[in-house]
């Protein structure tokens, strides 16, 4: 499978005007790639994920298109997307494990979910059971209520359901944030396992936790204030980033082995801009130590080395 | 800058308040009856109890709501009745809300044994057969007034409010700002009144409105079966007399339809208002 996002722009309509949550984003994902989508709150990563699969008001599709396997996805048309949703492109939403109906046994909930997608639960039961074995959930879990299950069990259940139809693209939105360290590891590894077994072709892992991405992602896409900052192989992003924001972000993360007395880490002064009326050009301009006059124009997302894209005039000018 | 934002918030609140149809309709109806209760007496020429007109006369320009089987002015009785109804609603509903607040706040804040015992108390009061109790009381007090009825209603209908307030208090109590207040040495009573209650203002207002409406209904029922005040008029008493004195077979509809319609309108409007207020206080439910 291949995913191409071209110039995608999505705004939120509010009483006070349009919030420009996603501005002209262009990138692609290859077959079998696990791409991490990272950034701080308000950077637009959840907007991007929702834009790909459920673009409903107050979100508004302003421009750009999405191509899945060279076919354009009708993302602006909720009805038309029904054909693709859950079958070709699926999502594990944030807090999904808390969204299970507490008064329904999990098996029944799963059956209702499948029926709503016009899939016969009885025919898919064998496959469902195989998947449960795969994630090491006892088959009896179908007869349990959500409250009887631990956080990790619920998360795995949701993962199984979201991928039951073998979607080409899976969007995993903050699926590890509410879990304990040991469960986080299990769930993250399961994600890789799904890709390895070709249950899903490619995955976009959305999180603010860079260390999880280091463990499981092939590439990482960094976003800031609705714009793309940098994309590249995981090693490159973590160990030799080029965008000033990425550099500051990575160096602000405490690591085991780094003590305050020895190395004082620094954060990024200032706050992200409000997207109701964002600044012209590069939105990181005000907090960037390397900003100059050129930054008043939006820097293009340029491939400075194979597979490594940066949106920064400093980096692209020096390469030009 | 902060001032402008505050003003904006208030204006936003009022903007939605004026746009909310349920609130507008509800308040208008209640206000109408309230004004009627307050100043309606100015428009009545006759004393409600006086025998002033022809017997069982239909509405006319002299007697707007006609006369009773005894020749009393129905409109005069109606006005007196609406006033009594509001008094019972305010006193009875108010008392119930107050007791409910007392029990609910203490049970929700303290927890533990205090909570357990207050819950037992609440359950007992909830389960007491109020009807039987009333019969006993009415046998004891041969002369009963509006105040006694209000107090009775207040003392028996608070459990609902107590339960609701307790659960809200429980949830607010677990918020960290209560812990911070405790760590500043604030006394529990002060925490309840300055930190928790103001946060529940909308809830308390709605609870009072519901108790108000509920009290009116209970009073109307009691009056109708003769367990209400022994003197004076209320809408329920009017309906009781109407039925006792054969208004139904005689077809003197002007005697019982206005009071019945008024009760339905007032209580209905109160509930309507409440739904509107709920939408107003809870932005997620707003009609936009």
């Amino acid at each position, binding site marked *: 499978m291949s995913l191409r996002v071209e110039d995608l722009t999505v705004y939120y309509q509010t009483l006070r005007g349009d919030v420009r949550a996603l501005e002209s984003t262009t990138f692609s994902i290859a077959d079998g790639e696990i791409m991490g989508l990272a950034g701080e709150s308000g950077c637009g990563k959840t907007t991007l994920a929702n834009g790909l699969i459920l673009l409903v008001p107050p979100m508004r599709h302003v421009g750009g298109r999405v191509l899945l396997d060279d076919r354009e996805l009708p993302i602006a048309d909720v009805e038309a997307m029904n054909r693709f949703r859950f079958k070709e492109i699926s999502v594990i939403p944030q807090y999904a494990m808390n969204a299970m109906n507490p008064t329904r046994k999990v098996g029944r909930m799963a059956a209702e979910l499948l029926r709503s997608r016009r899939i016969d639960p009885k025919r898919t039961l064998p496959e469902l059971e195989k998947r449960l074995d795969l994630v090491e959930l006892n088959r009896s879990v179908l007869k349990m209520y959500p409250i009887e299950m631990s956080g990790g069990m619920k998360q795995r259940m949701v993962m199984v359901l979201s991928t039951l139809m073998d979607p080409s693209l899976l969007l995993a939105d903050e699926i590890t944030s509410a879990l304990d360290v040991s469960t986080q590891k299990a769930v993250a590894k399961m994600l890789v396992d799904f890709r390895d077994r070709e249950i899903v072709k490619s995955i976009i892992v959305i999180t603010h936790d860079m*260390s999880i991405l280091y463990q499981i992602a092939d590439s990482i896409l960094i976003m800031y204030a609705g714009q793309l900052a940098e994309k590249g192989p995981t090693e490159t992003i973590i160990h030799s980033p080029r965008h000033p924001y990425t550099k500051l*972000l990575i160096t602000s993360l405490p690591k085991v082995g780094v003590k*305050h007395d020895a190395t*004082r880490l620094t954060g990024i002064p200032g706050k992200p801009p409000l997207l109701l009326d964002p600044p012209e050009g590069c939105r990181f301009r005000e907090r960037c130590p390397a900003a100059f006059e050129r930054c008043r124009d939006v820097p293009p997302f340029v491939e400075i080395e194979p597979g490594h894209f940066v949106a920064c005039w400093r980096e692209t000018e020096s390469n030009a | 800058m902060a001032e402008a934002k505050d003003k904006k918030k208030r204006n936003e609140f009022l903007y939605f308040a004026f746009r909310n149809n349920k609130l507008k309709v509800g308040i208008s109806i209640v206000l109408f009856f309230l004004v009627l209760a307050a100043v309606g007496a100015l428009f009545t020429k006759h004393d409600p109890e006086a025998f002033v007109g022809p017997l069982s006369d239909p509405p006319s320009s002299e007697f707007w709501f006609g006369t009773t089987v005894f020749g009393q002015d129905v409109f005069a009785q109606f006005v007196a009745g609406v006033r009594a109804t509001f008094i019972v609603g305010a006193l009875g509903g108010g008392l119930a809300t107050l007791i409910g607040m007392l029990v609910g706040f203490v049970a929700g804040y303290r927890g533990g044994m205090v909570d357990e015992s207050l819950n037992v108390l609440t359950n007992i009061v909830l389960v007491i057969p109020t009807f039987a109790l009333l019969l006993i009381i009415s046998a004891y007090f041969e002369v009963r007034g509006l105040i006694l009825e209000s107090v009775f209603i207040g003392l028996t209908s608070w459990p609902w409010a107590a339960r609701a307030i307790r659960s809200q208090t429980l949830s607010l109590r677990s918020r960290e*700002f209560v812990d911070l207040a405790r760590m500043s040495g604030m006394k529990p009573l002060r925490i309840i009144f300055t930190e928790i209650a103001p946060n529940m203002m909308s809830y308390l207002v709605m609870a009072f409105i519901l108790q108000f409406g509920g009290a009116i209904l209970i009073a109307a029922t009691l009056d109708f079966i003769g367990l209400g005040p022994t003197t004076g008029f209320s809408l329920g008493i009017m309906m009781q007399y109407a039925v006792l004195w054969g208004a139904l077979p005689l077809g003197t509809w002007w005697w019982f339809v206005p009071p019945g319609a008024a009760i339905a309108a007032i209580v209905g409007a109160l509930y309507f208002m409440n739904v509107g207020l709920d939408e107003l206080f809870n932005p997620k439910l707003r009609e936009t």
Partner: protein
Amino acid sequence: MLRLENASKIYRVGTFGGKQLRAVSDVSFTVKDGEVVSLIGESGSGKSTIGKMILRLIGITGGKITFDDRDIATLRGGALKAYYRNVQGVFQDPFSSYNPIFKADRVFEIVRDHFFPGVEDREWDEKVRRSLESVGLNPRHVLDKYPHQLSGGQLQRFLIARALLLDIRFLVADEIISMLDASTRIDVLNLLADLKERGLAVLFITHDLSLGYYISEDAAILYRGCVVEFGRTEKIYDHPAHPYTRMLMASVPRLDQKWEDVEIELRAKQEDLSTGCVYYERCCDPHRSERCRERRPRLVEIEPGHSVACDRYSTDG
């Protein structure tokens, strides 16, 4: 300065309080002046409960907690207030720590009403200004605002400023940065480190090992209410001894190392933990024996500044 001796917290659950839930069992450790101790554990480990017990928000069921050698459970009225002049806490959710209907400044006002009643306006304003500046906040940007108008990082620092107004000696920081954005986290963490340099002792409660490593001298690893390992942070991280600590180190996602392949059984059963090692069910260590089920291992010092509660290291035969 602050010492926990066999502190326990037992809740009664079930109908008529028949069963017991041991949130904290027999926990002992010390925090000295100007020292940061990390309390590291996952959910259900009892770390927040310990924090609340130290802050006198929850009662203690067994053992005792002393501050400057005074049992804090005995403090009442004026003495309790004096305790709060020395010990304060900051919690995880900055937005839940403020009453949303009041301005954020109100937390300062409350402190003023209860601890500085006679102070003049001008003197108070000066005090507030100095406190805000010492946590890196600009008074003009943060005063006279509602909580929703400030960011999470600002709110947390505001709360630290509040604690500093009282000139405290000990701060309980319960997951104070887990809800903040990555770029603000380090600023608040650095602030704690700076305050430590100026003599403030901190109990840093967290589930994130890398944060604990960054600022604390000592660390206590908690599992299901018990301390399983305690000592100098570097020693614990360098060569973790307890199987649970080793599992934690192996599972935490790192930025410099990929995971080793360790598969752990994840079913936690509800059981009475009054005897035996709390980690018995999940322990895959070959040394595990019936003795581990019967006897709760005590903390034993295996090298200076490093103790472990595991039968492997017990000194008796």
